[in-house]
């Protein structure tokens, strides 16, 4: 009996394992990007832009997209594997620390936004007993159980197909009630509304810069941000088609905005859609916290198992604040995070390029 054939070399086996982990990380990033974009679009852009929300979101994502492409180009020219490496080469350990710190700050802000949206979806939207703080503690308890090394990234990778199927069902539900009239007026609430929407949403493209923080370079393809971006735009287009713009313009509360996205669905699909929101926000929260911990520890090269848990608890404590005030502050930070990350990346790339020259 023959039991042998081609023997895989240790390098090949290692490459297989690395590929698996990379795919898991990529799906985690994609989920984070989708949730971050959709959350911002639904809660900040849609009430201001109305019928124009879907294309306004696309416009708001362009700065982040352009920065990503410039970053890719810069990394290719500087031949560095990632932004932190580039910063380390050009500016030393402090430079790498600053870039990673900025990314960690952005991820932490995103996590706070996500947990706020998750809890408010229940307290103000779906309607449930329990305060913001107790629900935040319950969510954090579950999160601590889920934050288990590489498990979260693998879990997101495992769940990507069920989540996409659920999203497909929700989009079909939205499309079934779609009316072309709802896309008009194309300019939504007018120029002032569009400008306000752009100011509120222009910072959300920061998530596109996250792949630049991780090696290796060959993963940083020009079309990397397009799948999550495309998915979000399609979802928003379906939402715009399904919801009358008058309804969109009158929403201001966070919970109402989130629930509005599912309000016009048939009862069962609505339930599925809320469940999808809940799971996506929860997994995105976990991803944000674990990636934030990863960025904080990246310059040191150490692994601290308890750090994501501590960060999750820290994120949960923000729910003790006044939610409306917190939400306003988080909105104001969006643009600055993109600017800070963009400047950090630009300085690192320029310095690295000059040094190489």
């Amino acid at each position, binding site marked *: 009996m023959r*039991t042998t054939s*081609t023997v895989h070399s240790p390098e090949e086996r290692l490459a297989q394992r690395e590929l698996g982990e990379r795919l898991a990380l990529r799906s985690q990033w994609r989920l984070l990007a989708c949730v971050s974009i959709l959350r911002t679009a639904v809660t900040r852009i849609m009430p201001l832009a109305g019928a124009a929300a879907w294309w306004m979101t696309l416009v708001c994502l362009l700065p982040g997209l352009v920065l990503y492409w410039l970053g890719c180009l810069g990394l290719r020219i500087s031949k560095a594997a990632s932004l932190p490496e580039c910063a380390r080469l050009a500016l030393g350990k402090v430079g790498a620390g600053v870039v990673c710190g900025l990314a960690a700050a952005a991820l932490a802000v995103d996590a706070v936004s996500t947990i706020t949206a998750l809890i408010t979806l229940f307290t103000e939207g779906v309607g449930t007993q329990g305060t913001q703080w107790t629900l935040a503690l319950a969510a954090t308890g579950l999160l601590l*159980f*889920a934050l288990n090394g*590489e498990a979260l990234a693998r*879990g997101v990778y495992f*769940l990507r197909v069920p989540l996409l199927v659920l999203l497909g069902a929700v989009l079909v539900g939205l499309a079934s009630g779609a009316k072309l009239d709802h896309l008009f007026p194309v300019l939504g609430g007018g120029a002032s509304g569009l400008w306000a929407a752009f100011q509120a949403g222009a910072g959300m493209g920061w998530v596109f810069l996250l792949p630049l923080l991780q090696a290796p370079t060959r993963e940083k393809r020009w079309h990397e941000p397009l799948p999550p971006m495309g998915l979000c735009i399609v979802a928003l287009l379906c939402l715009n088609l399904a919801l009358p713009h008058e309804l969109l313009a009158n929403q201001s509360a966070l919970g109402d905005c989130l629930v509005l996205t599912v309000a016009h669905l048939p009862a069962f699909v*609505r339930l599925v859609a*809320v469940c999808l929101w809940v*799971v996506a926000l929860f997994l995105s929260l976990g991803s944000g916290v674990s990636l934030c911990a990863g960025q904080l520890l990246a310059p040191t090269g150490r692994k601290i198992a308890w750090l994501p848990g501590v960060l999750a608890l820290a994120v949960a404590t923000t729910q003790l604040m006044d939610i409306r005030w917190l939400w306003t502050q988080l909105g104001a930070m969006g643009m600055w995070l993109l600017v800070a990350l963009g400047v950090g990346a630009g300085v690192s790339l320029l310095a690295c390029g000059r040094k190489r020259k």
Partner: protein
Amino acid sequence: MQDGISALLEQSLNVLEERLFRDVNTDMTRRDFRVFRREAAVYFVDGLVSSDFLQHYILTPCQEHTDAQLTVSLEDALLQTIHVGDAKAVNTYAEAIDAIVNGKAVLVADGMPAALCFDIRFFVRRGIAPPLTESVVNGPHQGFNEALRDNITLLRRILHTPELIGEMQTIGEASPTNLCVMYLKNAVDEQMLQRVKNRLAGIRVDQVLSIGALEQLLEDKPFSLLPQCCLTERPDRAASFLLEGQVVIVMDGAPQVLAMPISFLHLFHTPDDTSMRWQYGTFLRLIRLLGALCTLLLPGLFVAAATFHPEALPVTLLTAILESQAQVPLSIPAETFLMLLMFNLINEAGTRVPGVVGNSLGTVSGLILGQAAVEAKLIHPLLIIVVAVSSLGSYAIPDYSLGMAFRIGQLIFLAAGCIFGLYGMVLLSAVMVVRLCGMTSLGAPFAAPVAPVRTHNPDVFLRYPLWRQRLRMWLGNPFSMERTRGRMRGWDRR
């Protein structure tokens, strides 16, 4: 204490008599005789050796050489005289006693500073019978029994290759139990194999009475609900594990063997899947997965939908639930918990009572008790359907341990559904999947090859056509990923 066997027979006899407690241990037998003009004795445990073999191959040849002259050493002369295939000389009393209690006949003679151990074991054993818990429609109907040697033989009868290695070991300090670590030399991942050996070597217990106990001593995460090793009583399944590069542990006294590492999704596979055509195998596998999901989620979903999300139910169904609920004294969550507890009670009672009575018990409990409870308006008729379907689902799970895990998980999901509704269940599902993806079996990711993704045999969710399964299942780093090269259906040029 000096443990080396003495050349003086009297001294050896004294030591053995004392250490075997022969004055009270009546089945520790000694037979004295003369051979080559010297006194000798053979020790054995009555019932563990074959009396015929003892008489024909040890005692009779020795008695034929009672007054024969020695031309070579006594040890060599005895080995030439006694025609037993497995004969071995040992030099210490401990080894000799170990051989005796393991069922060998041990011969000591005057002037020989060693003892000769002859393997003439023969004891009462169960015959090869169909497996009790892993029935199949297509495929062989033979299962392992409790004899280590028989079980190894069953495996060797399937895998005719010298690459099938069986390393014998003992486990347990006070009462050592024999076990055999089996693997296919050119398929196994060396790291995994070493890990198994290290774990076995690191076990410090007085005795291991069952293979289930060994499983608990070997698994990665003992607090996890899910099994991380696979127990099978089918030689063909064990052989397929070996072919995939897994390690199989055969233990004396256990009618199952332990395979590791395993992955979660492979616990849903059965030998039927491979024996049947791929379309049928795929269909059955999907049914099994559906059954598992029903077991885990259906009661919780029912409670969550009826209690928290009635708007999601069709009006006719909701009306039926509300109408019958009005006549029932308990709330839906309490009823569901009660029904599931009743099901588990019936199941446990049915398992413990003898076969025929067990069947009757199931019928009586399931039909009569259920019907009586509905007529007495103690429970909801719809709930009986829900609990029955979820229970049927648990029986469709091929691995018993996994079925148990799902039955416990069912109660956890029910609690989540009762407290937080569908949102709680969905969140719990996500967390459970994440935890599952973080688990390992012998260091290999438990949710592999799906998460993390690996190059693997495509036979995971669906039963992929057999001739396209050119790769081994990915677990660890198998020495060779490819089972075969080129077309499996070599004659097919399409």
